[in-house]
């Protein structure tokens, strides 16, 4: 069986000041994923190797990490793709505080999701009223943005999030935008203040790497750009309203 050298960033907060690299040699075939390789290392070589994983089929979003500096899902990235280089380097997901080895602290990401109110607002139907009608065309407006698996690869890729850790970031903004676009929702005005605010969409300089690294083709960059248009319109409206108020006075 072929083997690949894997350099893995290790960090034990009780011992280490900063991450250090440890090399492992892992046998692989055409189907071996980075996650399979980590499981092999944990079973056979280093039981204290620490990483998150769950579904191993690219739907739960647990196993985001940096492979040769690029954010990847370990379960959907394969050792075969590094055969040419003969080596791959794995590090914890960028732009987040490292807790241990390949495990980062995602608290900020979760807090941003929560703050942006990703749920239907202002729709008073109850099950007794029956389902809302929503045509395929209405669904198509937001459907792409429902596919986010919360893996946070886009945060690791985003240079602006690297510079400003308070930025709400691509993932949570896409999710807020998904609800803004949903014909069943009336909550846009509750989400706009944060989207317009200092942690919101205007942090983005449209580098676009968030969409490049997204393993589910959600295209958060598009969500943010469209949100900027909304935000600008929102601003224009508020200026006009302000002037109208002055005229009335």
């Amino acid at each position, binding site marked *: 069986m072929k083997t690949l050298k894997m350099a893995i960033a290790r960090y034990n*907060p009780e011992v280490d000041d900063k991450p250090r690299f440890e090399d492992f040699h892992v046998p692989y075939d055409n189907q071996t994923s980075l996650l399979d390789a980590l499981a092999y290392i944990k079973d056979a070589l280093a039981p204290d190797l620490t990483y998150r*994983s*769950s579904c191993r089929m690219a739907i739960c979003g647990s196993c985001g990490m940096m492979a040769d500096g690029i954010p990847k899902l370990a379960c959907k990235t394969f050792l075969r793709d590094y055969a040419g280089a003969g080596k791959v380097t794995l590090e914890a997901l960028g732009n987040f505080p490292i807790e241990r080895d390949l495990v980062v602290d995602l608290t900020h990401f979760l807090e941003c999701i929560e703050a942006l109110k990703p749920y*239907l607002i202002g729709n008073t139907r*109850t*099950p007794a009223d029956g389902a809302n009608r929503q045509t*395929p065309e209405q669904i198509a407006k937001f459907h792409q943005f429902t596919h986010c698996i919360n893996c946070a690869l886009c945060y690791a890729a985003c240079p602006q999030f690297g510079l400003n850790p308070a930025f709400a970031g691509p993932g949570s903004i896409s*999710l807020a935008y998904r609800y803004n676009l949903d014909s069943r929702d009336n909550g846009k005005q509750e989400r706009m203040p944060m989207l317009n605010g200092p942690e919101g969409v205007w942090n983005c300089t449209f580098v676009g790497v968030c969409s490049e690294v997204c393993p589910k083709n959600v295209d958060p960059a598009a969500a943010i750009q469209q949100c900027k248009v909304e935000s600008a319109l929102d601003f224009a409206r508020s200026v006009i309203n302000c002037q109208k108020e002055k005229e009335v006075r």
Partner: protein
Amino acid sequence: MQIITTDLAIVGAGGAGIRTAIAAAEKNRNIRVALISKVYPMRSHTVAAEGGSAGVIQDHDSFDSHFNDTVSGGDWLCEQDVVEYFVKQCPTEMVQLEQWGCPWSRKPDGTVNVRAFGGMKIERTWFAADKTGFHMLHTLFQTSIKYPQITRFDEFFVLDLLVDNGRVCGLVAINLLEGELVQIRANAVVMATGGAGRVYRYNTNASIVTGEGMGICFRHGVPLRDMEFVQYHPTGLPGSGILITEASRGEGGILVNKDGYRYLQDYGLGPETPLGQPKNKYMELGPRDKVSQAFWHEWRADRSITTPRGDVVNLDLRHLGPQKLAERLPFICELAKAYMGVDPVHEPIPVRPTAHYTMGGIETDSQCETRIKGLFAVGECSSVGMHGANRLGSNSLAELVVFGKLAGDAAVERCAEGHNASDSVLEAQAADVEKRLKTLMKQKGKERWGTIRDEMGLSMEDGCGIYRTAELMRTTCSKLAELKERVKNVGVTDQCAVFNTDVLSLYEITQGLDIAESMAHSALQRKESRGAHQRLDKGCNKRDDEHFLKHSLAFYNQSGPPRIEYSDVKITKLPPAQRVYGAAGDAQPKK
């Protein structure tokens, strides 16, 4: 040790746990709910469910029809009053999810669409393309954010329950990131911890589906019911076990052997239906147990295809065309490409049966409460009596929300009663949990938990697979007894307090051995064939209602294998009959 006081503690934040939490918050606006999970909610295994969720919606469908399909699909081992409640609540819960934002697939007029599913006489499976579990889980998680009553404890691993005088009083968990133990005191606890598919070597389940929630209740004396019934899903990818949804067949996909022959017609599911015209309860739309059993026979007859990752048959979707595949089955196309290098538009997908679902679980009454007052169980970890000897596809996602709602409502009422456990008793129990964890951390020896896990998994495949014999089951029982000794010699390497997955994996696998034993011994003692429990040995290869129209109950036994007892099955309106599909099903006289 820190003590957090709440009203209701829910263990597990998948579909069942979150639905329970929301129900409790809606029932009592002043309640405090602790939602505790060893992973972030969206990592829970509900996320991987693909095909859909059942609920009668079409005019020509009926609750009776859904009831009959479920009870006969379960080979008459379902609690019929529970199924009756379930089928009536399903549509309400599906609409509720819609009103929380779930992007159900729709018809052009904007109404919700449904698809065909195995063992269901009429199309009643609500779906969101082929990522239904994903969309349901994210909808529930996102909706849960709006309830201030719910406090999440993400990445808290529950080690044990606090129980005094037959009344649950809370639990002890470890905060993974801090490495510290915490007591969460509560008036009621709901277990929503999922199944135990990972006790099998090849399975469709996430790595977190290790069964310790069942194990904790088991050790507190709550029986595990009907554990011998483990579902093999007919279509997993070879090697990885990754699930290829039954909706592939619901949309018209066919299964063929190495000769290109649709072999299901030879196993009581025929006659063959025309390509592109799937017929409910015929051929590829048979129930999972029978479709997996048919594979076994083809494999034994040397008509499957041998690959380096095991024998397979072909799931052919090519005739559906690229447009329908993109609309209805995008995820399985993505999976087949990424993990098999196969594009279903142009090639069939190699598949084989793979352990998938734990029909049995923590015994509860029809209100989801266990024999320990205030302790509830819901979802795959539970046995409320929904699935009998074989679950129908799309009944489990619906179960999460129907019984999550019920458990949440019932638990709120139980919370109101409070309990009068003595603080010192609970403190002593918590101290004992801490001591056991410290002892486990210091455990020394040459064994590795990975080896124990793999040997357990292979032994379960051998002894408790699609077909079973007394001899094979006995071998598995002996093997599990051996592993239970050897697991005491697993050395723990990792001594770091933060996110110690070395010691917690050992904890999961130790509990998994208990669960595996409950499955193997329940299976060995059920001397008949029913649903997913099929025996080849003489005298056991037919259903035997006279002796085994019973639930099995496995009770924990500290000094050896579990004690197996039996309880009655509640039959209200559909008496046991022959279970038939295909043309034989249509020929059966109607009641």
